[in-house]
């Protein structure tokens, strides 16, 4: 079992990507994980031996108090934060300066090297916002990674993307390419690869709906939570879902592949 604990801060998003696992969009119920509860669980996670926290959504930066919450969690454990990278206006960049030097990795989505290709599955203007934001964030300085979620890249597309990411100042080790997973909206759209439980690394993931097998698990399809990878509805005390997961893991012959080995 991974030593990272994931939180879904919320399910709403300013975008509505074609392959979104959680069917996120500006109009879905927000399902916000209360910051105080996240902090309290992060403390329990540290006591139980977890070594880091992952934060995803929805778009976490839609939560106005996110930076304060990050500081509190970073006082406990290192954090990897996933964002679509489109909400970094001037005021937000100023606010993020307080995070310089903290043990935080911020991971931004960028799928293709051109606006036409990148924005086709995400949203118009997405590409421009991301490539403008990355240098500003690196300047702070923050540890920035780029995650590319793709159905199929040609070798030209792959080359072009690698060049762009390099040009943006992101080292190769901080560029993650992963396949679309066939769940949530991607499933409705007929996109992505199937990932069975044997292929998904167990990484305990908490949302307001419960505790799940991995961050690929708490997905929504046709407006309904997909419960097949639910571990328990109880999330507190954290030892409750941890115990269930640990006793269950032994029964699963887990064999990750490069796309399912972890969420990042």
């Amino acid at each position: 079992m991974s030593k990272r604990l994931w939180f879904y801060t919320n399910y709403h998003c300013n975008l509505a990507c074609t392959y979104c696992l959680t069917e996120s969009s500006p109009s879905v119920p927000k399902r916000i994980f209360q910051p105080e509860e996240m902090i309290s669980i992060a403390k329990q996670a540290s006591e139980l031996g977890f070594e880091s926290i992952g934060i995803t959504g929805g778009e976490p930066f839609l939560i106005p108090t996110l930076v304060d919450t990050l500081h509190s969690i970073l006082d406990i454990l290192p954090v990897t934060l996933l964002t679509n990278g489109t909400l970094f206006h001037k005021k937000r960049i100023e606010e993020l300066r307080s995070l310089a030097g903290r043990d935080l990795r911020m991971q931004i989505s960028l799928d293709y090297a051109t606006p036409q290709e990148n924005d086709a599955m995400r949203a118009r203007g997405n590409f421009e916002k991301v490539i403008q934001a990355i240098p500003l964030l690196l300047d702070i300085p923050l540890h920035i990674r780029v995650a590319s979620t793709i159905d199929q890249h040609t070798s030209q597309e792959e080359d072009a993307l690698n060049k762009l990411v390099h040009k943006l100042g992101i080292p190769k080790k901080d560029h993650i390419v992963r396949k679309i997973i066939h769940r949530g909206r991607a499933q409705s759209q007929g996109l992505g690869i199937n990932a069975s439980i044997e292929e998904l690394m167990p990484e305990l993931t908490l949302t307001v709906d419960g505790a799940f097998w991995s961050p690929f698990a708490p997905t929504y399809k046709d407006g309904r939570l997909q419960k097949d990878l639910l571990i328990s509805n109880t999330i507190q005390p954290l030892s409750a879902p941890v115990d269930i997961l640990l006793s269950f893991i032994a029964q699963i012959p887990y064999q990750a592949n490069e796309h399912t080995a972890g969420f990042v």
Partner: protein
Amino acid sequence: MSIITLLSKSQAPITTRSFYAQETASPIISSIAHVPELLLKGMPFIGQALGASSVSLRMKEMMILRASTKLHCSYCTNTHTVVCIQAGLTHNEILALRGEKEVDEVFTEAKEKLLIAWTDAMSNGGNPISTSLKEQMIQHYSEAEIVEFSLCIGATIMLNRYASALSLPVDPDHLRILNKQGFSIVS
């Protein structure tokens, strides 16, 4: 029609799948599967309380069918009529437990009649159980048996209320068996 989705094996949380022998499971399992931690802890208890143990399946099923009848739970009454057939109870015994014949006309053993009286007393809302009935139980049964009986009846009543509240549907195969064996379907 159940008021909540009955999860098939492929929809059900992974931690609950061992409770599914096939793609579908009983409505009790496939509804509680929405809360895996409840199923994981609750089913072993339910299985122990309601299934054969040091108390025979015949006695357990007598109590379950009787309590379900008293609680007017159509799901449990129909379902456990079938289990009673499978457990070897006679047609008349089942009718008597379902209140469709007089218990005294069908059951002859004093200890079994006492067990039915105990079930009736426990299934009678919040009304107190008479001292004389308690004394008879202590005379005829061991303390361990009284505990098992009382928990079996209590767990049945819990499931009666659960199944009725959620409108759990009876397995169509069970309905066919009831028809074939000449039992009315309780609604």
